[in-house]
């Protein structure tokens, strides 16, 4: 086998950070399977060619496994004559266990299967959260899938469909977790497997689950449907630990790094080194809990918030998700069913009303949040906005009917308006 020279790539073997080039070369030079040696050799050849010319040489196509319409990113080389063994170099997107937990055994098992059918290159994980098995021929994608599907792995999403989801480490380890991220993750995604495996939506639709507002999954930024853990009651304060903190770090440090950083000035450090929290002002931003995890913990009345419409740049520029459900409990079957119902109604409305290749966030910007909320029968809440409208360009007849609705839902708000 004639090795392609890779002068530019070779420069990526120096330096301390683990080198993917070295890794690929190891497959090329020392792997026992000829197919893998040849594939990786040609892959390096084409990649070197890209580095030399500063251009990419892959083109797409459409392939999938029997019974599915998606889950694979097909790649055919535009320079396949010069690099025939990596001419077909498809990536299988395989859903990871919720929370990305693996035993070394299951990793080995996946490695063995991939060794049989693929290039020997794999990524944990892609930016959407899939295990990416990078580099299989059209034929082998099926065999590989058949094999791993037997022991519990399934393809993820590609194309205009429900995509693979992500959930943070959360309850498995993290003291900030306010909900069961992995349960939410699986119940949501596994309820939409048909929409995932047979792409038929206007465009992609992503779920992400973070156990608290630190949002380690970037759910608000990158998910069409974000589930974020939070709490409704008072945060838990361990005053002894607060005092401990003052002892070790000093009052000044605590004032400058916690008290003055609270976005709503909800914290007061009392003269006796105890901490007072104004829980009605607290917006659950997490900062003080992050700085003092021993002293401060989320409250006990926990649940999740839902935000809709995050996406990145294409067409309208980046967009964050915005709140549609400020808080909901997730304790029993009914709660979970309620969550799944909201997701279903959302996706149905999206499927019916979005334009081709329009994300749900774009759709909401086009039709207005209110229309979306009304379609789903979700009650308006001030938590959905940063502030009420600043301009008078709205037609407010039917004000009284709308006011009625509010008072019915909020009897505790006395109706002194009419009284007046």
């Amino acid at each position, binding site marked *: 086998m004639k090795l392609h020279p890779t002068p530019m790539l070779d420069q990526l073997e120096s330096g301390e950070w683990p080198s993917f080039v070295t890794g690929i070369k190891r497959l090329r030079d020392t792997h026992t399977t000829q197919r893998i040696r040849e594939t990786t050799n040609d892959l390096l050849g084409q990649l070197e060619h890209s580095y030399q010319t500063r251009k990419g040489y892959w083109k797409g196509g459409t392939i999938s496994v029997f019974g599915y319409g998606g889950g694979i990113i097909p790649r055919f080389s535009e320079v396949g004559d010069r690099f025939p063994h990596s001419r077909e170099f498809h990536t299988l997107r395989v859903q990871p266990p919720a929370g990305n937990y693996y035993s070394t055994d299951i990793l080995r098992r996946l490695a063995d299967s991939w060794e049989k059918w693929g290039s020997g290159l794999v990524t944990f994980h892609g930016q959407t959260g899939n295990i990416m098995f990078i580099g299989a021929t059209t034929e082998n994608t099926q065999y590989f899938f058949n094999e791993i599907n037997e022991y519990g792995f399934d393809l993820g999403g590609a194309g205009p469909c429900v995509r693979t989801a992500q959930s943070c480490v959360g309850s498995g380890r993290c003291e900030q977790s306010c909900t069961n991220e992995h349960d939410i993750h699986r119940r949501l995604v596994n309820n939409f497997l048909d929409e995932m495996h047979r792409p038929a939506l206007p465009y992609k639709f992503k779920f992400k689950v973070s156990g608290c*507002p630190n*949002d380690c999954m970037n759910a*608000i930024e990158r998910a069409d449907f974000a589930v*974020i853990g*939070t709490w*409704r*009651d008072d945060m838990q304060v361990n005053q002894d630990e607060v005092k401990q903190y003052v002892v070790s770090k000093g009052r000044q440090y605590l004032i400058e790094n916690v008290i003055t950083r609270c976005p*709503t000035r909800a914290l007061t450090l009392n003269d006796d080194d105890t901490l007072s929290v104004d829980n*009605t*002002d607290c*917006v*659950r*931003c997490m900062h003080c809990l992050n700085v003092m995890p021993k002293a401060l913990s989320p409250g006990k009345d926990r649940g999740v*918030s839902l*935000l809709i419409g995050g996406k990145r740049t294409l067409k309208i520029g980046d*967009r*964050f*998700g*915005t*709140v549609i459900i*400020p*808080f909901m409990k997730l304790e029993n079957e009914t709660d979970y069913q309620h969550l799944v119902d909201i997701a279903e109604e959302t996706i149905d409305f999206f499927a019916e009303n979005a334009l081709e290749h329009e994300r749900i966030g774009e759709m909401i*910007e086009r039709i*207005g*949040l*209110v229309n979306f*909320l*009304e379609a789903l029968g979700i009650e*308006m*809440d*001030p*938590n*959905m*906005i*940063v*502030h*009420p*409208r*600043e*301009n*008078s*360009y*709205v*037609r*407010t*007849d039917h*004000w*009284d009917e*709308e*006011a009625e*609705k*509010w*008072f019915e839902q*909020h009897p505790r*708000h*006395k*109706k*002194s*308006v009419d009284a*007046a």
Partner: protein
Amino acid sequence: MAHEERRVPTESGCPDGIQYMHPVMRENFGHWRYHEDPMPGVLRHVAESGDEIWTVRAGTQRILDLFTLRKLCEIGDKYADGYVRFTIRSNIEFMLSDGSRVEPLISALEENGFIVGGTRNSVAAISHTQGWLHCDIPATDASGVVKSMMDQLIDEFRHWNMPNRVHITTSCCQINCGGQGDIAINIQHTKPPKIDHTLVANVCERPSVVARCPVAAIRPAMVNGKPSLEVDERKCVCCGACYPPCPPMQINDPEHSKLAVWIGGNHSNARGRPCFQKLVAAGIPNNPPRWPEATAIVKRILRCYQENARDWERINDWVERIGWSRFFELSELPFTKFHIDNWRGQQKSLNASSHLRF
């Protein structure tokens, strides 16, 4: 202009104020060190030279009749030094160099029915527009609204019982000549204009009327044989912009032109950047001569602010801290779909975070 008189004007423009300025102010011009607030309505400014100037501020009806104006001059001569100014809120200010004359001046003013106050953390005089007394497009009055509300806010003007100064404004149509304010009481039309098609052709320059509409709801049309204009009522946001250039597009309606209350406008740069006011209540009847419903809402908002805000928090600072959920709860005002912005840039007013209040 058919007129005998052919005098050529002297284009003198804006007169120099220095000539009418109190000598102490003139001498210390640009050299003031600090001020104190001895009591509501009274300011004591001290210059680097050590000189001091006392200011006494009094509220008046903005529409002054000559008797009232002359009375103010008389008081200014007798109890002060004959130098006055009017603030941007049409309060009169008497400037004097001798602090001992302040008390008598105040008594004289109060005896003559003028209200001393409106400084610092009080409710300032409500800024005032023309209304039915003079404007050609008003849906309500201005002088009457201000009078009615100030009658109810007299203590808040006279005393310092607010967390910070409160600037209230009113406007008698949706064009809003009154500024934004900590609280603003404005007209909010709720129905599209009623068009008198017989007049449009003669009165209105149709292309420029079409251009005036913020949502492009107006299109030229022939109505029973006459060139006129047509409004797409599904698009129309009832803003009234088409009315001034085209009076036959009557936007004002005794029943359907309502009042709306806005809060949190702050134009100073103190603390946060200047910020716009936000809609909190609408659908309020336009109810002369005393507009009790609107006043009741304003008073309720002021009460909540007074009870819950911290020193130096303007209304916007306060609501930013406690959040809108809590504001609607405290003020007992309904939150509706109308509060959720749907105008350009709406996106930025949605809550793209999990910052939430419970």
